[in-house]
């Protein structure tokens, strides 16, 4: 039975993971996402569903545990916050290179360095441009509510197994920490070992029966031609993601003359700014990318033919604005408005920025 609850974003994500039939979670505490592992440990998922939960000695270990369990075809996830994700990038690059399904959650805080524990969107570049070494991308889902924190877990696993690729849920300290009502889905059964072998036994390292060749999980190709072929295979996946699994949301864009582009918590604030603008007679609209990679480039280009200017609203010093500019091909002015250091912009500030930077 689905269930309505009042929960923190981090807790909703953890509960959704148990309900989605996830096989294992490996993590290491860091604010503002420690509630994920705390909740999981408290809920005794090993008793509820048989899910394995382990506190690793470091983020490095945690992500390599994810790599290990994913290589055997299991449904496995981890979560962390900015400095922890930096440590996880080595493993994330290996997961992408070895073409393994896995879900990674980043509840972003302000940086660089130890930074602050307050919310931020300053890990946009790291998330959508690769981050770790080599030619790879992550499919990036950006939730903007506690409900989406819960819903995106299952969505992320679907994508991860569809493409055999790592998926990132890019949240932030605001959504991770705030409480909202959330509709939790029914408990799904975890797959049995036999079902995992049936489903993924053609590629996963589940133990070699006489009936098949050995399965090898590796990201190593010492022969250049083979390595190039691997990179091309990855790039094909990313093209397919763009064609089949791009996600975005439009708010009051039909007649919009000015456009906000914002994701995650910024999108909630920008949505309110649209309402404030409309009350003042300014025809503003909002495009919210739900997937940051793939990015809704074509949608933006189309909107650029209609609006007079675009404001990219972010909790950083200007990151997504680069992708917005690239998408609209210089058709209209694009400006950035952001706060950093863990400060959240108010809807009034956002509207003011639109008036000063775009409408003038």
């Amino acid at each position, binding site marked *: 039975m689905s269930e309505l609850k009042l929960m923190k974003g981090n807790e909703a994500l953890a509960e959704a993971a148990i309900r989605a039939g996830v096989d294992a979670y490996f993590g290491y505490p860091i604010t503002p996402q420690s509630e994920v592992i705390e909740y999981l440990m408290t809920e005794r998922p090993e008793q509820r569903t048989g899910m394995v939960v382990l506190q690793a000695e470091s983020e490095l270990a945690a992500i*390599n*545990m994810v790599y290990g369990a994913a290589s055997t075809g299991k449904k496995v996830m981890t979560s962390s916050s900015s400095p922890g994700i930096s440590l996880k990038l080595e493993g994330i690059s290996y997961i992408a290179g070895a073409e393994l399904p896995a879900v990674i959650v980043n509840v972003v805080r302000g940086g660089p360095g130890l930074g602050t524990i307050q919310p931020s969107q300053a890990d946009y570049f790291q998330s959508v441009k690769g981050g770790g070494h080599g030619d790879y991308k992550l499919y990036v889902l950006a939730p903007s509510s506690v409900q989406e924190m819960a819903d995106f877990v299952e969505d992320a696993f679907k994508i991860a197994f569809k493409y055999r690729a790592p998926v990132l849920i890019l949240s932030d300290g605001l959504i991770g920490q705030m409480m909202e009502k959330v509709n939790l889905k029914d408990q799904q059964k975890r797959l049995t070992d036999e079902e995992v072998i049936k489903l993924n036994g053609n590629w996963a390292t589940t133990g070699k029966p006489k009936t098949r060749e050995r399965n090898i999980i590796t990201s190593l190709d010492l022969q250049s031609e083979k390595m190039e072929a691997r990179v091309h295979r990855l790039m094909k996946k990313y093209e397919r993601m763009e064609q089949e699994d791009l996600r975005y949301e439009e708010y009051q864009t039909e007649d919009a003359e000015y456009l906000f582009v914002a994701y995650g918590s910024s999108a909630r604030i920008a949505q309110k700014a649209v309402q404030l603008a409309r009350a003042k007679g300014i025809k503003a609209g909002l495009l919210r990318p739900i997937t940051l990679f793939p990015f809704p480039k074509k949608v933006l280009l189309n909107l650029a033919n209609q609006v007079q200017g675009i404001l990219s609203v972010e909790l950083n010093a200007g990151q997504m604005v680069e992708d917005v500019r690239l998408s609209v091909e210089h058709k209209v002015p694009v400006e950035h408005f952001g706060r950093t250091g863990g400060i959240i912009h108010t809807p009034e500030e956002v509207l003011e920025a639109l008036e000063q930077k775009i409408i003038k």
Partner: protein
Amino acid sequence: MNVLDIIKPENQVFCKSKLMTDTTLSYCPGCGHGTAHNLTMEVIDELGICENTIGVAPVGCSVLAYDFMNIDMTQAAHGRAPAVATAIARTWPKKYVFTYQGDGDLAAIGTAETIHACNRGENIVIIFINNGIYGMTGGQMAPTTLEGMHSSTSPYGREIKTMGSPLKITELISNLPGVYYVTRQAVHTHKHARKTKKAIKKAFENTRLKKGLSFIEIVSNCNSGWKMTPNEANIWMEEHMFPYFPLGDIKVNGILK
């Protein structure tokens, strides 16, 4: 007995395991990695556990172990094999999981993963090839490089004052309660290889009995890295490595010797 008689399967004391592939080994002639691979595969074959075994390959000369071992294998990032194996063993508790790692991999970049997997007493087997040097990357100093030993990054010999003492990681981890079986062996003679095989078998049996972690150090040579002929390397190993890394059991059935 002529040569043809000697190479008849029934007369061979040592032959290629059925679980080794036909791929030509990428190791230098005389290197201990090949023998250690073969012994591991013999044990898995003899125990009949191929279908339930998952190996984790390291970064180092044995990075391509999966090309030679005809079993399911996952290749791990440099030093992270114990974390990878932890997750496999946790999510597939009925499987036999082992890592195969060099000294750079296990005792330098992967020290944390090694110590913590051992401390948790993961139900896995760690096979640790200690050749006192980084072979793959061209003979740089390892944590296990002996005092005074030359390498490309200790060209005047390892100096304790600035570079620390050779790390006895095996003794270190043997003190952890989660570690059930620790032994140090070698593979450069038939006699030693047979003992090593026994140790590996015991380790996999420990996995079957869910006893926790079994750790087998194999002191081996790196004739290329040490810049010696294979024979010289083996003699040097006996004279220099064995006194510092003495062979034999260190912990059996959870009890320190």
